[in-house]
């Protein structure tokens, strides 16, 4: 529950130091803590908001409540043992963290991944993108009070999660992508189920789009709220739907192609205004494009091995460092690994897109109301497992 942060006797107001250009004027400011346990912080984030009436004069996200020291924990573990840890980075998109980590390991150890494994990785990660965006779009609905849209997106997400459950037996922390491939081949009938999902998903997605983002009230709530200019988007290092909502035409799948992405035909949706509405809508269309990619990947999927051969379970790559990044649902997710030649990691650094995207929150929220803050925070779609690591 939120609490007032002032120690003043007056419950809700605090006299703060003069701000602005006129040093003699005293501004009555309300300081509100949104979080760390609040339905709209999407995790455990505390946003200290300074309010003038309901208008935000200054806000600062306080992160680290979910800091588990995963980068430190990784230094105590073998290369395989770190994979379950990466599940817990972005718990809405575990596959991405798995994949980014495994790509870095494969680079470091020079492992060649079988083609089928690459296709499966693409398929599951695009499904993961859908699942993750369902969370993002749905919470845009929940933040604006349209809880039903949240349920509809979660109905779609549930289908993806069930596909994942068939695949690896878990619904949230998959531990599926491994160095050298994936842990298990697709089960029987999975491809058909996946096709059935992608066949209905774009239409269902557009219906949700009509319900939520076509609604006049939602547009009034989202449009022009939290505008991130293209220049700022680049300078602040944002990526993913946040940058693309601002018109930054940058998608690692197309611009720094990895895995088998060059073999697929897809487009990258872009926004014009960089407001919360564009960010939400970029996610909608990314889901539709993901379905296209999945369909193409399922068409091109050939039988074969899903694990690199000749791979000992105890990897000990050569001393050195390697970095690899992939386009996760939140942006470019990079993993930087340093090896000292022993079977355990020397250093792992996760370049977390949510962390970089969240940094622009004070910039975006200033001048908007408290109601807009949750919308802006929601449109940045942070996952605090990844922000705090």
């Amino acid at each position, binding site marked *: 529950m939120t609490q007032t942060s002032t120690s003043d006797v007056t419950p809700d107001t605090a006299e703060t130091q003069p701000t602005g250009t006129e040093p003699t004027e005293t501004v009555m400011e309300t300081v509100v803590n949104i979080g760390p346990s609040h339905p709209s912080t999407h995790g455990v984030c505390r946003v200290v908001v300074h309010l003038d009436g309901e208008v935000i004069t200054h806000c600062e996200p306080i992160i680290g409540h979910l800091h588990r020291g995963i980068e430190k924990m990784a230094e105590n*573990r073998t290369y*395989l*043992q*770190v*994979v*379950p*840890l990466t*599940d817990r980075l972005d718990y809405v998109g575990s596959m991405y963290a798995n994949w980014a980590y495994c790509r870095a390991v494969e680079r470091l150890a020079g492992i060649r991944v079988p083609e089928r494994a690459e296709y499966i990785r693409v398929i599951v990660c695009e499904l993961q993108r859908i699942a993750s965006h369902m969370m993002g779009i749905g919470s845009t609905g929940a933040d604006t009070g349209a809880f*039903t849209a949240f349920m*509809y997106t979660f*109905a779609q997400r*549930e289908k993806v999660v*069930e596909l994942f*459950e*068939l*695949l*690896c*037996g*878990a619904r949230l*922390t998959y*531990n599926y992508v491994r160095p050298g491939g994936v*842990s*298990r081949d697709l*089960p029987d009938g999975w491809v058909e189920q996946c096709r059935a999902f992608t*066949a*209905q998903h*774009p*239409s*269902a997605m*557009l*219906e949700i789009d*009509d*319900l939520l983002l*076509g*609604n*006049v009230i939602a*547009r009034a709530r989202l449009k022009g709220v939290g505008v991130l200019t293209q220049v700022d988007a680049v300078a602040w290092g944002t990526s993913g739907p946040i940058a693309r*909502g601002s018109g930054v035409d940058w998608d690692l799948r197309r611009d720094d192609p990895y895995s088998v992405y060059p073999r697929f035909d897809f*487009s990258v949706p*872009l*926004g*014009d*205004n960089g*407001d919360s509405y*564009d960010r939400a*809508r*970029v996610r909608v*269309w990314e889901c*539709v*494009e993901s379905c296209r990619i999945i369909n193409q990947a399922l068409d091109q999927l050939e039988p074969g091995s899903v694990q690199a*051969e*000749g*791979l*000992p*379970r*105890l*990897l*000990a790559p050569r001393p050195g460092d390697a970095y690899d990044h992939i386009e996760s649902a939140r942006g470019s997710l990079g993993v930087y690994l340093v090896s000292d030649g*022993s*079977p355990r990691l020397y250093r792992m650094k996760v370049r977390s897109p949510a962390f970089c995207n969240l940094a622009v929150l004070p910039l975006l929220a200033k001048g908007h109301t408290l109601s807009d803050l949750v919308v802006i925070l929601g449109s940045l779609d942070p996952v605090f497992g990844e922000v705090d690591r």
Partner: protein
Amino acid sequence: MVVIRKDITTPASVSNEYSPGVKGFLEKVHSLVNGLGITARISTEKPITIRYPAEKWTVSPRWRGALRLRGVLGHDEIPLIRDASTAYNAVIDDLYNGERLPPCVGNCPANVDARGQGFLIAEDRIPEAYELVRDRNILPGVLGRICHHPCETACRRNFYDEPVAIRPLHRFAYEEFRKVASERLRPLPITQEKSVAIVGSGPSGLTAAYDLMKAGYRCVMYEREERPGGALNSGVPAYRLPRDVLYDEIDGIVALGLELHCGIEVGKGKPLGALQREHDAVLLAVGLQTSRILPIPGAGADGVVGALEFLWAANHKGETGVRGKRVFVIGGGNVAVDVARCALRTGASEVRLASLESEEEMPAHPWEIEEALDEGVIATCSVGPEEVLVKHGAVTGMRMRECLSVFDETGRFSPKYGEGLSDFPCDVVVFSIGQAARLDTLIAGTEVLVSGRGQLVVDGSQFTTSTPGVFACGEVVTGPGSAIGSIATGHEAATSIIRFLQGAPLSENRTPRPVPVYAKYAVADVSSVERSRLRSVMPMTKPEERAKDFRQVELGLTHQEAMMEAARCLRCQSEVCVGCTFCARTCPDYAIHVERVDDPGGRCLTRYDLDLSKCAFCGLCAEQCPTNALTHTGQYELSFFHRDLMIFDKGEMLRSGDGTRATGRDGIMPPGCPVPRWRER
């Protein structure tokens, strides 16, 4: 259901706006009405919520729930694959289909139960281990010295540290069995009236004879040479296989009831037709008798010999006539390496091995090449024979042409040669490029068909020839191959003969033996593995000493080493926890603690603790478990009234899948734990 739309294309810009003016107003009103329409439509659909959790129970067989153990040491024994001939295939097929076949057994052409051998040796039941192995591998002592051990290649220990020394254990089991052989070898009872004649006393013939004798048939074996053993006797050098071992093992088979006649060449002294009349079935296990020699210029000169002839001389006479001469061996296979090493041992001044393939592609086993190089053999790779240089009818050298590639894109043998030529001075040229069968005298006067290239016409899966009642097995069917591969064909041929004699259809219920599909794992990094877990090192004589004579190179394991080595066997797929601690080593959260006692004959798992409060349900431990003893249950609803209850000890882990503490479905529950409602449904 939502109407599926096909015409969905991503717009150039996703930020759509309302139109200005009245149209925009209508769009706004429409958006509201549309929204109400969507929710109204969806409210008529069937809800998708799962009735939690009753329907959930069957969602995914891959579910990662709490862990359990299927069995532990001391509770269950691993299944010993011990069934001869026909029934054996069914056993293997069952295990294979149930994914319960251990990799070593699956990768062995003859499916020797190496896992059972390890189990019995570790239990100090060594003669039994020998007999278990002999059921599938007729000459454990011989194969324990010369086999190329595909089992060890597939051994799952490969990707943890080093493979179990299965082949040295065969040899060790033989050495131990030899001490008690007189007590354990009793003639097998002859229960059938019919008899079988077997031509050739090589490994495949002996195997078929053994299977047939077990089935109760009388077997009569004819061997051309003075001593039995076939290629093992004439081809394999004595430094790899001491002859007394071979003869001793064959004597053991004779002691089981085999009638062995040496020095009788079927076709010359005794025609094949006579055998057909005397016996109800005849098995041709004659192997390959002649070396192939390339028809290049100078191949007929004095000093050009074939490999088999060379090895025969080395084995039987101990003298090849190369003392002080320079020997040039053409070929990159195991036989070529044998020839080279024999040449060294018979006093050659310089031995050069010339292979067509590059160093990586050489078909000989890498450890053989390595040993040969240690002893002083010079290897020249990627050269093909061009011409034997001859002066006054004697060999003076060899001209070789550079070889660019041996195999084409599809992997077929299709060498491409370059321009480069090189001359090597030498006195003797040994062609070791393959062997062929010589059948003309054998089949003279019978109706057994021979193809145009002089090969026997044989059905590859049933081992029947063109004449009913005449069967064939071994290298005469498969071409040059390994001893264990010949043994595998012997088993199949015996199955066919038994069916033939009993009048059963030959092909019925005869699925081809599962093709080994086990991935080859690289040798793992063992730097962090403690010494006691590593493979026992086979002691060898020093290269400079061993190159001089035909004493055996490998010295064998001691009793202590062998027991240690057998205990290293993980008993893959046996579904019995052997306390290998791989789960505990793999667990990222250190939630598993394993302790075991490793005494010979009394191995047991003393402690297995799973701390569920640490478990992250990542599933790595169960994936690592080589025996499949550690598996997941479907329990995902875990709640406990006390933190201590979250530590599952060995007893808890061994309970059946739906009866552990987590759900209390077996009625044994912590106090106050409610029985889930859905249990009663």
